[in-house]
């Protein structure tokens, strides 16, 4: 019986008929790589389809406090216990001065028991002993974690009433507590800052702060004076500007500069009379002076002048950073820099040599130093609590010194690290940079290559511009100045004769000739300015030479005079631009920081020890808690669209953030320059990259089928015409054609339109080659018997083509199409990379990679390269699948 059954099944099996599709699938399954590719692609497409669901953050949402944040560390243990996945609030940015990436996790206290009193912060209330503060987040009320800030911010109303923004010493030392507007008005709650983290928290809300300030005095017109202690250093400029729009900027500046001076003068007296112990202060002062001066010396040696003159943003940062202590001590660095730059440009104009400029700068900074030390001393004598004052100054200075040491060390480190470049590369880089920056500054080129910025950064961090090796360049600068002088003279001379119809006398002619010759001589001596300027100069020299020739022939100089004037206008305007760039140093705020709200705050990792010592002043913490933010799955957060249609807040994973803390984010693949989640952007970008290939392929093959089919089927003249067209399109080099076609279309259009354009451009390029192959296949199929039979029956051409000829090309088409798709993905990526494709803020893989093209960004935020891996795996998978399909469709493998 058993045998019988077996026989039966065997017979049945043998007679099982497998359809062609099943056969192909069976063959394909054997292809391991093909299957692997298929799986990868399935996953990729699923990712694209469920993009909203998979993104923990909105891909467009910027968060500047997380600029270049690395992948967020996820913790498991809290105070020794395993509590499940959680993250801490964090801050990240690239320090523009040292060009180092900084990343800090912060501890936000949620409960502190101190001296038997329990302080709780959380939810919508903050409890302070018996008092409970309620606040309503929707109304803009917030709880901060701020501690002592040793500076005052305040306003004075016209009625003479003074409002200090909200600090008072008694509370300052310990409490970190929230406030709301009504309490603020009553002057009961004082927010104070000591920790830099807390500073950042406040500063990042400065806009809000100034709003509160206004609320405090009720009406802007009531404000008589507004002040801000200079010690808010770098951010103050920005903030002052914000405020000064509403308040009187002059009053503000008065307070900052003159107010401080008056105060000093008042307190200088008792010191002069021999009251007070100044030796400790003097020691500190000497130490600071030494540090600061050493740093200045270094800076001077490493190209301060060119920084000042070229005046790029980094130079400004550097100056501000090096003079941080000075600002802290109330020295009017800004005003002095203003004067300095004015004087520098004066000196430049008069063609002084470099050492004079150097001395000027040095002198200026020495005198600033002296002023600073004086201020410390005088401040001491005026202080009511001398010990506190000394403590304050010392801590301030030591902090400053530590910052200096940090800065110096990191710079040194960096220099050592890049020493290998320094020898061989720096010079070339500087030259390239000079050329690039100058060109873009002077001629305002519309496209500035990405590397320029990288080069500029290197340039400054090497501090090498003022190297003897670049003597030629500096000399050229001076020659440009003397050229300008000659130009003035030339103008004078020519002004007399350059009238149409005027015939100059022999003497006049000789004078003109001489001046021109001088001019040419100087211009020809320029060894290096920039290639661009050189070419300009060359053309001027050429025209000057030719006018000399014409002069010899005694012709009118009028025309050539015009030419020279035009040429020189370029030079003089270049000079102007240079000068205006230098002047920019003065207007720090205009150049602006990229992270204005953070400035160059020194964030420190906020450890519990710090909490104890700083916040609670060593009085003993019995217990504490800090906030942790749990990582949850299927969490509700931002509103996305599930499957493009249904609004949904549920996401696969995310961080539970009940108090909407802006510092809490989870970036599994880091964040980009604007603090946007790279993973979320990758996920959304996959929609573009994955669909563009398929749509492009369909259009291409549609076109190719029509062209190739008709051409191959009918032959003759039609064939000849169509194929010549295809050939011409094929003989325009692909990438040029791509850019050309892109150039044909407007640049400033929304991404959706760009997407459609890209699809058509890419298909337009691709169809020619494919249609030729199809034509060839159609040609051979057409001669087959079954086609001839179909024609013989009298079927119309269209039917023969559609039913009999084209279906026979499917095997080829399927394989070719699969192998073609990567081309579109790469095409889109390249165009977007070049900035010609999808535009910000929309994302595409290529565009995301464009952010990483800056060497320094790349070094500090290598996770920006991840989108490249996605391109790679997608393309690889399409190739694998194509390969697998080719093997599977091969008749031999179908068995």
């Amino acid at each position, binding site marked *: 019986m058993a045998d019988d059954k077996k026989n039966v099944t065997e017979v049945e099996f043998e007679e099982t008929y497998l359809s062609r599709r099943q056969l192909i699938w069976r063959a394909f399954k054997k292809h391991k*790589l093909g299957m692997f590719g298929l799986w990868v692609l399935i996953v990729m497409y699923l990712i694209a389809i469920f993009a909203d669901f998979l993104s923990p953050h909105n891909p467009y949402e910027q968060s500047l406090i997380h600029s270049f944040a690395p992948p967020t560390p996820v913790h498991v243990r809290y105070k020794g216990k395993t509590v499940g996945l959680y993250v801490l609030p964090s801050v990240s940015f690239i320090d523009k001065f040292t060009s180092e990436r900084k990343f800090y996790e912060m501890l936000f206290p949620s409960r502190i028991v101190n001296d038997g009193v329990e302080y709780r912060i959380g939810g919508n209330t903050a409890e302070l002993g018996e008092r409970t503060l309620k606040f309503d987040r929707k109304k803009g009320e917030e709880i901060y974690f701020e501690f002592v800030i040793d500076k005052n911010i305040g306003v004075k109303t016209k009625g003479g009433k003074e409002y200090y923004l909200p600090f008072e010493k008694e509370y300052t030392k310990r409490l970190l507590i929230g406030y709301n507007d009504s309490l603020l008005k009553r002057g009961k709650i004082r927010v104070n800052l000591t920790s830099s983290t807390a500073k950042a928290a406040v500063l990042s809300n400065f806009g809000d702060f100034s709003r509160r300030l206004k609320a405090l005095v009720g009406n802007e017109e009531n404000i008589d004076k507004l002040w801000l202690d200079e010690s808010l250093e770098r951010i103050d400029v920005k903030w002052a500007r914000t405020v000064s729009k509403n308040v009187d900027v002059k009053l503000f500046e008065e307070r900052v500069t003159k107010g401080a001076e008056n105060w000093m003068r008042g307190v200088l007296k008792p010191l002069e009379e021999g009251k007070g112990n100044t030796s400790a202060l003097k020691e500190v002062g000497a130490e600071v002076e030494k540090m600061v001066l050493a740093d200045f010396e270094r800076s001077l040696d490493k190209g301060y002048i060119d920084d000042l003159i070229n005046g790029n943003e980094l130079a400004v940062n550097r100056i501000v950073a090096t003079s941080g202590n000075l600002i802290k001590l109330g020295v009017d660095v800004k005003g002095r820099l203003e004067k300095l730059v004015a004087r520098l440009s004066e000196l430049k104009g008069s063609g002084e040599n470099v050492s004079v400029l150097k001395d000027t700068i040095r002198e200026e900074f020495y005198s600033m130093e002296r002023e600073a030390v004086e201020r410390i001393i005088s401040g001491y004598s005026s202080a009511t609590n001398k010990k506190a004052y000394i403590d304050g100054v010392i801590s301030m200075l030591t902090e400053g010194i530590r910052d200096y040491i940090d800065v110096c060390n990191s710079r040194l480190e960096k220099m050592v690290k*890049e020493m*290998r*470049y320094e020898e*061989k*590369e*720096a*010079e*070339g*880089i500087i*030259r*390239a940079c000079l050329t690039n920056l100058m060109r873009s500054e002077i001629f*305002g*080129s*519309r*496209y500035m*290559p*990405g*590397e320029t910025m990288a*080069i500029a950064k290197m340039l400054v961090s090497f501090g090498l511009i003022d190297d003897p090796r670049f003597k030629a360049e500096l000399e050229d600068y001076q020659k440009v100045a003397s050229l300008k002088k000659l130009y003035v003279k030339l103008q004078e001379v020519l002004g007399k004769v350059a009238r149409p119809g005027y015939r100059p006398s022999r003497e006049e002619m000789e004078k003109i000739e001489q001046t021109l010759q001088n001019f040419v001589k100087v211009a020809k001596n320029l060894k290096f300015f920039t290639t661009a300027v050189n*070419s300009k100069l060359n*053309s001027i020299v050429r025209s000057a030479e030719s006018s000399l020739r014409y002069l010899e022939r005694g012709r009118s100089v009028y025309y050539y005079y015009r030419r020279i004037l035009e040429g020189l206008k370029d030079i003089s305007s270049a000079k102007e631009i240079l000068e205006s760039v230098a002047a920019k140093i003065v207007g720090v705020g205009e150049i602006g920081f990229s992270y204005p709200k953070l400035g160059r705050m020194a964030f420190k990792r906020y450890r519990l020890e710090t909490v104890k010592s700083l916040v609670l002043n060593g009085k003993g913490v019995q217990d504490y808690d800090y906030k942790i933010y749990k990582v949850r799955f299927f969490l509700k957060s931002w509103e996305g669209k599930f499957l493009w249609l249904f609004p949904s807040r549920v996401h696969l994973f995310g961080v539970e953030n009940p108090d909407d803390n802006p510092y809490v984010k989870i970036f599994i693949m880091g964040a980009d320059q604007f603090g946007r989640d790279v993973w979320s952007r990758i996920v959304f970008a996959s929609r573009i990259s994955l669909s563009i290939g398929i749509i492009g392929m369909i259009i291409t093959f549609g076109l190719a089928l029509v062209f190739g089919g008709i051409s191959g089927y009918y032959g003759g003249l039609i064939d000849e015409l169509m194929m*010549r067209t295809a*050939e*011409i399109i094929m*003989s*325009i*080099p*692909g*990438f*040029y054609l791509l*850019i*050309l*076609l892109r*150039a*044909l*279309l*407007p640049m400033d259009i929304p991404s959706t339109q760009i997407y459609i354009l890209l699809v058509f451009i890419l298909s337009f390029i691709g169809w020619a080659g494919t249609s030729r192959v199809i034509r060839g296949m159609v040609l051979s199929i057409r001669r087959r018997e079954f086609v001839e039979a179909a024609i013989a029956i009298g079927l119309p051409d269209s039917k023969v083509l559609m039913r009999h000829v084209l279906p026979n090309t499917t095997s080829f088409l399927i394989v070719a199409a699969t192998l073609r798709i*990567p081309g579109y993905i*790469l095409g889109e*990526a*390249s165009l977007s*990379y*070049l900035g010609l494709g999808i535009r910000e803020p929309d994302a595409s893989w*290529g565009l995301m*990679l464009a952010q990483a*093209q800056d*060497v320094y960004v*790349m*070094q500090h935020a*290598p996770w920006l*390269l991840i989108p*490249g891996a996605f*391109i*790679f*795996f997608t*393309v*690889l998978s399409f*190739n*694998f699948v194509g390969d697998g399909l080719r093997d599977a469709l091969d008749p031999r493998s179908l068995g």
Partner: protein
Amino acid sequence: MLKYIIRRLIIMVPELFVISFLVFMIMWAAPGDFLDQYRMDPSVSPQFLESLEKELGLDKPPIIQYSIWLKNILVGNFGYSFYYRQPVSKLIWGRVFATIILSLSSFFFSWILGIITGVFSALKKYSMWDKLLTIIAFSGIAIPGFFLALLLLYIAANTGWFPISGMVSIGHSQMGAGERFKDILWHLTLPTIALGFGGFATLMRYMRGSLLDVLNEDYVTFARAKGLPERKVIYKHALRNAINPMITFLGYSISGLLGGAVIIENIFAWPGMGRLVYQALIQQDVYLVMASAVISAVMLVIGNLIADILLAAVDPRVRLE
């Protein structure tokens, strides 16, 4: 043969004519023109603009502009670049050297390495080496050139083994001839790899496939059967036949020599034509674009022609008529 070449060259003329016309029309149809950047500048007077427009010939209708350009090009004048204020031929000539160096080096890199590894991989079919090379080849095909370039740049920036941009070091002009050569070679390495890797991978795959096909042919079996040493079988019988299909590729490679490096040149700050042309395109520096497009098209057509001729030379079965 000669007749065929002549015929192809004659066909080339109208083709180039149409291509240049197309490119010109596309440039013309693109919104705005070179002077746009001046128009936006309020300090430039309208009179100056007008005079510039006249000087650059932008006030004439496009057909006339084109015919002027065509007339000039017949006497070897490629026109004047708006942006650089220099003759186009001079500009291109200054850059073409760097591009040719880069293209040739990546060309040789991909061909030599591709053929050798392809043959190696075919001979060691299904071995560990073969699998490794296959993985490399697939990666090479799949990795976008600019991404590879970025990765190489990243490595270079972190290790300092290679320079990150440019073509020569600073002290280049003071070096001896040998050192100069070494210096350029040193700078050339990364761009070459970035540019040639894709080609290398493709060629390797093709060479491998082609050689495997040939090794299955009857005449190879016969050669073995008659007792020829394996070396002879492979290098004399199999390889010579396997290399034929590669010749077609050679033509394509030649045609791509000048045009293929735009992005790579951009990333490595290589002072070649690619960057020049890309910027010209963006700035709508018409004549510069035209000249480079024509040059590239000529290279393409000639490349195809060379491929056909080579194929006929290598494979006696192919006849050119």
